[in-house]
C-alpha cells in the first residue's frame, strides 16, 4: 500500500497526473499524453492490422445496448449510469435547496439514454450486427474509448476513467482464436520494444458475487482470458496492461452477429490499458521521458 501511495504521490509531485480529489479520477499532463500518443502510434506501426476499420467512441454508450450486453448480470458493481435532472421549476427549487443544505439532491435524477462505456468493445458488437452478416473473412476493428469502472483506489494503475485501445476480431472460431494467439506473441514483442518486463498468465474478469465465482472458474478452466502483466505498483501483484479475450459465441448470440455463411460469429478482442502502459513506462524508465533509454524513445517518439 505504501509503495502505491508513494508512486501516486510522485506522479502528482511531478505533475504527470493531477489530483481531482476523487480516487482514480485524474487529469493528465502534456507529457503523460505524449507518451500515450507515442504508444498508440507504436501499436499501429507494429500491429500489422492494416485492414482494420478504425472507430473511436465517446465515453458513453447507448443504454439499451448496455442493457442488452448483459453487463449488469456479471459486473453490476463496476457500472456507471448517467442520470439527469428532468423536473419542473418546483423540482428545481427542491434540488437547489437540498444542495444548499448539504442534503442528498440526487434522488430525483432520472436515468438518461447514456451509460458510461465499461469496455471499449461493448458498443461495437451491436453496431456491427446492425450492418448485417459479416463479410467473407470476418471483421477486424481498431477501436478506442474512455472507459469507466467504479472501483475507487489509491493505486494509480486502477483508475475509474481510463482509455482502452482494442483490436477486435469477428468471424469463424478458428480465425478468431488464431488472431488471439498471434497477439499474445505480438504483445510480448511490442513491450520488448519499449523495454518493459512482461509475463503472460491466464486470468478472469471480476464477476460479481457467488455466482461470479462460478463464472470466474469457468473462464479460467476454458482459458478464455489471458493478461499481459507488468509490475507497476507491486512486484508480487503485477498489473494487467493488456488482455487477450476469446468470447466464444457470447457476443455473437447476444447480438445475432453472423458470419458470411449465416453462422453465429465468434469474437475475440485484444485490449491495451493505455494509462497503465504509460504508468509502467514511467515506473520502469523514470518520470522524465527525455531521460528514457534511446531505444524506448526511438520506439515511441522516433
Amino acid at each position, binding site marked *: 500500500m505504501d509503495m502505491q501511495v508513494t508512486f501516486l504521490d510522485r506522479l502528482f509531485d511531478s505533475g504527470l497526473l493531477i489530483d481531482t480529489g476523487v480516487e482514480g479520477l485524474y487529469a493528465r499532463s502534456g507529457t503523460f499524453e505524449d507518451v500515450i500518443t507515442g504508444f498508440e502510434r507504436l501499436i499501429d506501426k507494429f500491429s500489422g492490422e492494416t485492414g482494420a476499420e478504425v472507430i473511436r467512441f465517446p465515453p458513453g454508450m447507448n443504454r439499451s445496448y448496455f442493457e442488452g450486453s*448483459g453487463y449488469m*448480470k456479471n459486473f453490476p458493481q463496476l457500472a456507471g449510469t448517467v442520470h439527469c435532472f428532468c423536473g419542473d421549476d418546483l423540482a428545481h427549487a427542491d434540488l437547489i435547496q437540498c444542495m444548499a443544505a448539504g442534503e442528498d439532491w440526487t434522488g430525483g435524477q432520472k436515468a438518461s439514454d447514456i451509460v458510461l462505456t465499461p469496455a471499449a468493445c461493448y458498443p461495437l458488437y451491436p453496431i456491427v450486427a446492425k450492418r448485417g452478416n459479416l463479410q467473407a473473412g470476418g471483421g477486424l476493428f481498431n477501436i478506442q474509448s474512455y472507459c469507466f469502472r467504479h472501483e475507487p483506489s489509491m493505486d494509480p494503475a486502477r483508475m475509474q476513467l481510463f482509455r482502452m485501445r482494442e483490436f477486435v476480431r469477428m468471424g469463424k472460431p478458428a480465425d478468431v482464436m488464431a488472431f488471439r494467439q498471434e497477439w499474445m506473441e505480438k504483445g510480448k514483442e511490442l513491450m520488448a520494444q519499449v523495454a518493459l518486463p512482461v509475463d503472460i498468465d491466464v486470468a478472469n474478469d471480476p464477476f460479481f458475487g*457467488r*455466482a461470479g*465465482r*462460478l*463464472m470466474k*472458474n*469457468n*473462464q479460467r*478452466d*476454458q482459458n478464455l482470458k489471458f493478461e499481459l502483466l507488468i509490475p507497476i505498483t507491486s512486484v508480487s501483484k503485477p498489473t494487467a496492461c493488456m488482455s487477450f479475450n476469446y468470447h466464444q459465441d*457470447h457476443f455473437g448470440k447476444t447480438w445475432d452477429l453472423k458470419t458470411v455463411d449465416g453462422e453465429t460469429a465468434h469474437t475475440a478482442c485484444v485490449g491495451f490499458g493505455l494509462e497503465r502502459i504509460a504508468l509502467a513506462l514511467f515506473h520502469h524508465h523514470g518520470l522524465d521521458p527525455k531521460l528514457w533509454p534511446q531505444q524506448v524513445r526511438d520506439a515511441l517518439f522516433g
Partner: protein
Amino acid sequence: MKDKIRELLGKLGGLPVAVDTLADGADLYAAGLSSFASVQLMLGIEDAFDIEFPDHLLNRKSFASIDAIAETVSAIVEGREAA
C-alpha cells in the same frame, strides 16, 4: 434427485435439445449449456435442495453432466449431515 436435476436443467439450462434426450452421463457443455445458464442452474439447485455450493465446488466440473451434478449435490448434503 436426478429427476429434480433434470427438471431444473430443462427450466434453467437454456439447452437447444430436450433434456429427455440426454443420458445421465452426457456432457452438458457439449449439449449447449452456457456459462451463464450454469450459474442459473447452480442457483436453482441451491434453492431446490436447500444447499450452498462451497467455493471449491463452484467449477465447470461440478456441472459437466447430470451425474456430476448429482454427485456434487450428494457430497454437499452428506458433508452437511456429517458436520
